[in-house]
């Protein structure tokens, strides 16, 4: 039996062509949702409260060189982001605006890890893939400027890579839900739902434990299988309705920002070429007087299908990375939810209820007088909350405190943390060894032996 996934097959596949329509609609949808998201972020005042005001920022591993700009600079970045969203939406100077959006968005995302969201990660990946895809080569202002750029057919991978990425999100999110707490104890939903009884109309059902079980199992099945239902033509429409219901419900129940909107729009890429073509034709007709698209006359302009080796290699690596990276947690001892080693960048969304109170004690190595730290003198409420339950952030804060008290004249600060953390309604336990001098510990890929082991009962 010949291997189906041989390299030859892969390059053959890359060579196939398909309609540009789904890609174009995806571009418009992505530009629109990102525009909305950027406006919303600024409207909420988060540029100041999340990026400019905090005295310190928690960095991503390997990205501690990323710093926020002064206030004016941050607003300039957001200004550029707004313009690039418009550029993507309208397909205007797309080659530049798609790159600008990716850079601005990812830069802002990298400033502070306490604001980490899986959907920001998703947006960054998609924004990067948008740079590679010729999504502006039809139904765009770029085509109006230069009709010779018009394409009707593009290589299949430029559409399918987005489907792949969306599939990764759902399937990993589904797999992550297959665990004891989620399925057998309906946790954390049996904590979250009873807090939502004042939601209009459906509120009362959340007081029942049964509802939490129903939602837990339905959520797991939805995430695990929705992609397959979207891929098959017969089930596509019901699946899409399920997508809308599922994301609207989570959007109403939880404070998850624009994520539901992102997914509801992104998933439309699974619809047929024909569907997208009709959509474009319909909108084109609305604009027909100005005749933006000379589209009908150029039915057969096809993008050269030759895919360079470097691109093929890159795409394969990217896909492999996406498939493998979420599994890295298996290489760590201990409970993934407790130690969170390998937790991020793995599509573990709304998976646990975890909260902690971390008290830091700083001792001057010379005099040995120990005092505790008032966290909110350095951190905002959100940063403090996130830091208190994640070991690597506790470590970062300890190192910050070391530097701070050194600058205040301490010779050799000894910093330890007492972090009482509750996970899925279990009584709080110490997350890290409260006797360890954290200033002597470094953040690496290696397992952190100062994280306590989690005791479930």
């Amino acid at each position: 039996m010949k291997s189906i996934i041989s390299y030859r097959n892969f390059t053959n596949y890359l060579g196939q062509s398909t309609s540009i329509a789904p890609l174009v609609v995806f571009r418009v949808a992505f530009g629109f949702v990102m525009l909305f998201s950027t406006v919303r972020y600024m409207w909420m005042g988060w540029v100041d409260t999340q990026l400019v005001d905090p005295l310190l920022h928690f960095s991503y591993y390997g990205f501690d060189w990323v710093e926020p700009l002064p206030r004016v600079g941050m607003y300039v970045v957001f200004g550029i982001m707004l313009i690039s969203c418009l550029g993507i939406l309208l397909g205007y100077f797309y080659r530049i605006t798609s790159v600008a959006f990716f850079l601005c968005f990812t830069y802002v995302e990298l400033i502070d890890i306490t604001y980490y969201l899986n959907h920001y990660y998703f947006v960054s990946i998609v924004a990067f893939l948008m740079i590679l895809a010729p999504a502006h080569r039809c139904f765009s202002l770029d085509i109006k400027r230069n009709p010779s750029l018009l394409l009707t057919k593009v290589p299949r991978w430029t559409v399918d890579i987005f489907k792949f990425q969306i599939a990764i999100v759902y399937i990993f999110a589904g797999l992550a839900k297959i665990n004891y707490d989620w399925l057998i104890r309906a946790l954390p939903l049996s904590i979250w739902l009873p807090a939502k009884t004042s939601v209009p109309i459906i509120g009362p059902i959340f007081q029942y434990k049964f509802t939490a079980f129903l939602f837990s199992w339905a959520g797991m099945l939805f995430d695990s299988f929705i992609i397959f239902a979207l891929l098959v033509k017969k089930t596509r429409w019901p699946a899409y309705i399920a997508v809308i219901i599922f994301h609207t419900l989570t959007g109403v129940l939880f404070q998850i920002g624009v994520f539901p909107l992102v997914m509801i729009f992104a998933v439309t890429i699974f619809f047929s070429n024909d569907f997208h073509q009709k959509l474009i034709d319909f909108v084109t007709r609305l604009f027909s007087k100005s005749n933006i698209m000379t589209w009908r006359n150029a039915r057969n302009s096809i993008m050269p299908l030759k895919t360079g080796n470097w691109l093929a290699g890159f795409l394969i690596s990217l896909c492999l990375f996406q498939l493998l990276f979420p599994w890295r947690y298996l290489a760590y001892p201990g409970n993934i939810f407790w130690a969170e080693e390998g937790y991020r960048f793995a599509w573990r969304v709304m998976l646990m209820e975890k909260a902690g109170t971390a008290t830091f004690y700083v001792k001057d190595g010379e005099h040995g007088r120990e005092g505790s730290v008032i966290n909110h003198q350095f951190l905002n409420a959100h940063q403090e909350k996130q830091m208190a339950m994640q070991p690597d952030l506790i470590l970062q804060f300890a190192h910050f405190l070391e530097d701070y008290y050194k600058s205040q004249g301490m010779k050799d600060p000894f910093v330890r943390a007492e972090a009482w953390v509750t996970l899925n309604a279990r009584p709080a336990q110490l997350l890290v060894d409260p006797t360890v001098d954290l200033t002597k510990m470094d953040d690496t890929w290696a397992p952190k032996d100062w994280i306590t082991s989690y005791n479930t009962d």
Partner: protein
Amino acid sequence: MKKNINIFFIFTLCLGFACSDDEDSNDDLGFDRAEMLVSLAENLIIPNFESLQASVSNLQVTVDDFVASTNENNLSSVRQAWVEAVIDHQHCSAFGFGPADLALGSYASVLGVFPVSESKVESALNNPGFNLAGSFDRDLRGFYAVEYLIYGNGQTDAELVAGFDQERKDYLTLITNELKTTFDGIVNEWNSSYLQEFIASDGTSAGSSVSLLYNEFVKDYENLKNFKVELPAGLTAGQEGADGTLVEAFYSGISRDLIVEHFENSKNIYLGMSRDGQEIVGFDEYLSSVTGGPELVTTTLESIDGIDSAISNLPMGRLSDQVEATELIILRDLLQDNTANFKSSMSSLLGISITFNSGDGD
């Protein structure tokens, strides 16, 4: 699709059986948050603010008398009225949301700041052009600026009265009036429109009444630990030693009483108790209704007992002279140990959102 529906149906059925024999079924009785809000507002929050309003009004009356006729007798009435007001303040400081959330922050973070800056007070009262309403300084106004003026720092009562010139009288009147106006406004707003608004917002998301109340309750508790115990005792990182001048109510010397009253109010909110000791609906009842709640309540009650006895063991007399006392360290440690119960464990079990930042989601 049909097959999927069948499979789903079977799953659902299994679940129905699975949870019918799961744990005690009174988990299914929902807790009425609106009832808790009504109970706390009508029996604790509003009466406490009304009491504070009355004692601040009385303070203003005594200040007027003292200004009109400055003698030791009237000074002693002002002090008595101040003590009553500042004790009432301990029973309101946790309610710094809604009407009590002033332009500069919760009222206690504006009018309850200590230590005051003696130099700022002196320069403000000697500055004819000083505009209190336009000032952003918190350490020259409020309860403890009044305290500084009426107790002085080290003078005898006779010296204080003799030195109480027109500038001091004007400034005392000015900052007392600010207190009076503020609490009149807060009580008025609670009684006119805010109560309805407070009860109606019975969700748990950020900005809901439960979230506001809970958030201020925790902050207020942490203020007790951080600023009334830890800092004076010199137990904050970077401090070289204990410092008696950092206690609350340094000039009057009633710091210990205020710690007692402050924790009393924390307990009233948590345990559901009016200030005069009547049982009402509090957070413990809410907690008892949720998964993992009863265990947390048990743990917390033990902690509260420990803190109660640590407080009663505090040395009598001026706390500022005894900030090295081990009893203070013991109290700090116990307050610290209980912080996680109040802060993270409780909000986690109740599903209360504290900030507006979006959480992680699918």
